């Protein structure tokens, strides 16, 4: 027995070393592939004659009318999309989750459907729909938010769904109902606070998606951020690259902050469970 232990330990340690070495090689190789373009974007957008650096391209972001207009439009669209998504999806999902469980699969199927219908296909059929929308509401680029709500459904659904499963919404709402709360009260004062983490990450994903959206806006001829970035790329590549990098970093920071908030909450929940002596696995 002791001989066997003595024999396996170094083997295991060697294997562990091999594993951690492989791990860092993978990080190195794939990391370079993924990060090199981002580094190159920084280099390209600060390029000057010779070896000196210049931030002219970054300063141009602030003065380029076209670009500022596009940024404003895309931010407005992001806000409208988040509001539309929250108002449309949250009550429906909560209601179905609590009161109509047999519709859960239907809602899931519909929400994931946009993943199976490519945007490039959707836009072909959207052109006639949007000529009606424009006829009714007037021609405004903000109307793009209608279809953006559809595009964010899969991401929003997953985020909200996960948070609905993480908290015992059924018991909470039953308790509230038992104490005499009406359904709107249950929704606003019990459910929404309980799933706010999911709502937050759904909103962040929606913002990131809207800021990066190109297919539909470009083919319906609206000048959103990406359309203008693409257009400027032909004339003034430096500014385009600078804006692209800024947008990517903005998206990264958003997602990172949300994941930090999420993991802190997970840790708190786990610590609380341990303190109570509950030997629960985190689901």
């Amino acid at each position, binding site marked *: 027995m002791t001989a066997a232990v003595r024999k*396996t330990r170094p083997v295991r340690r060697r294997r562990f070393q*091999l594993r951690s070495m492989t*791990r*860092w090689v*993978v*990080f190195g190789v*794939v990391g370079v*592939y*993924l990060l090199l*373009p*981002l*580094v*190159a*974007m920084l280099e390209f*957008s600060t390029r000057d004659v010779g070896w000196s650096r210049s931030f002219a391209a970054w300063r141009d972001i602030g003065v380029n009318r076209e670009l500022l207009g596009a940024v404003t439009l895309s931010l407005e669209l992001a806000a409208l999309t988040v509001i539309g998504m929250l108002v*449309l*999806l949250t*009550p*429906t999902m*909560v*209601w*179905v989750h609590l009161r*109509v469980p047999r519709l859960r699969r239907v*809602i899931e199927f*519909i929400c994931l*459907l946009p993943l*199976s219908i*490519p945007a*490039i*296909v*959707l836009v*072909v*059929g*959207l052109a006639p*729909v949007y000529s009606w929308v424009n006829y009714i509401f007037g021609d405004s680029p903000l109307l793009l938010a209608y279809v953006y709500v*559809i595009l964010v459904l899969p991401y929003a659904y997953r985020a909200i769904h996960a948070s609905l499963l993480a908290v015992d919404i059924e018991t909470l709402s039953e308790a509230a*109902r*038992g104490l005499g709360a*009406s*359904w709107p009260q249950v929704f606003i004062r019990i459910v929404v606070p309980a799933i706010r983490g999911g709502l937050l990450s759904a909103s962040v*994903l929606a913002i*990131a998606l809207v*800021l*990066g959206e*190109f*297919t539909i806006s*470009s*083919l319906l001829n609206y000048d959103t951020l*990406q359309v203008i*970035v*693409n257009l400027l*790329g032909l004339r003034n*590549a430096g500014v*385009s*690259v600078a804006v692209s990098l800024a947008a990517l970093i903005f998206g*990264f920071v958003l*997602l990172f902050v949300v*994941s*930090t908030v999420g993991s802190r909450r997970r*840790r708190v929940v786990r610590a609380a469970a341990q303190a109570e002596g509950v030997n629960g696995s985190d689901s």
Partner: protein
Amino acid sequence: MTPTGGTDPDPANGDVGLAGARGGSFAPSAGPPVGPARSRRKQLRSAARSLGAVPFLGYVVIFLLWPTVLVVAGAFATDSGETTLDNVRTVVSTGAYLNAFKGSLELSAATALAGGILGGLLAWAVAEGDPDGVLRRAVLAVSGVLAQFGGVMLAFGFLATYGYSGLVTLVVQHLFGLSPYATAGWIYSFFGLGVVYTFFQIPLMVLIFLPALDGLQSQWREASDNLGGNAWAYWRHVAGPILAPSFIGALLLLFVNAFSAYATAAALISQGSPIVPLQIRTYMQSELVIGQANVGKALAFGMVVVVIIVMSLHALLQRRTAKWAS
């Protein structure tokens, strides 16, 4: 059993649907309903509850299902609306369209495989680390951005790296004296498109595949070790078979992802249309070819068919996996 009391919070009085669709409220019944009347009431009630989903469903019909129906119907209609197979026939008999489909399928398959392998390795490297660590969260956040929201920006990233005046091109020129025209042309080619596509497939693979890797339990590894198995034996006989269905499923999703992508290709390739989405762009931008107005819809319909086939395979695979796992 009174309608308001008890543990069952039934919407007996003053209950208004959350989504605002349910106008009326149930009048409290005079006495406890019995027998068939009660079950009918129950059915009615449950049907009324379903109405809460109506605004959502209506919205989806207008902005998702209706456009899709228009595409499918248009693929089989003439300009004046009569049913025809001409559009589909045109797509099937035109070399450029067939080549575009071939290009799309090849590009999607190749980048799904390359991205799947590289992304799978990266996911493994992440899964080995601290589940709440900064590294993992950073990789996930970067993956989220690059996989789902990059589009045009990634195309610019690659041009800034490997384009005619990109960083790598200049470094190579400086070190080896090679002309940019000799070293940078590939990025604008079909192969270059594949390299860029692989770039956004890797992070998507990480997002999809990481949960499967997290599901591997350390006890399995220990059991394999204690039975004298080496790393190869563990991957060959334990982890490999367990992960295989998720891996293949992930590859199918990556395939669909590449097949549906448009923005990156549109920003990178301004002339020629080697893949279907770019053929659709050409059609969208010059809609007025007489008698051909619906060919673009036939192209889009072809894309839907391919995606449906792949997604059905994916669903089938998942059902099998679920059955096997339970």
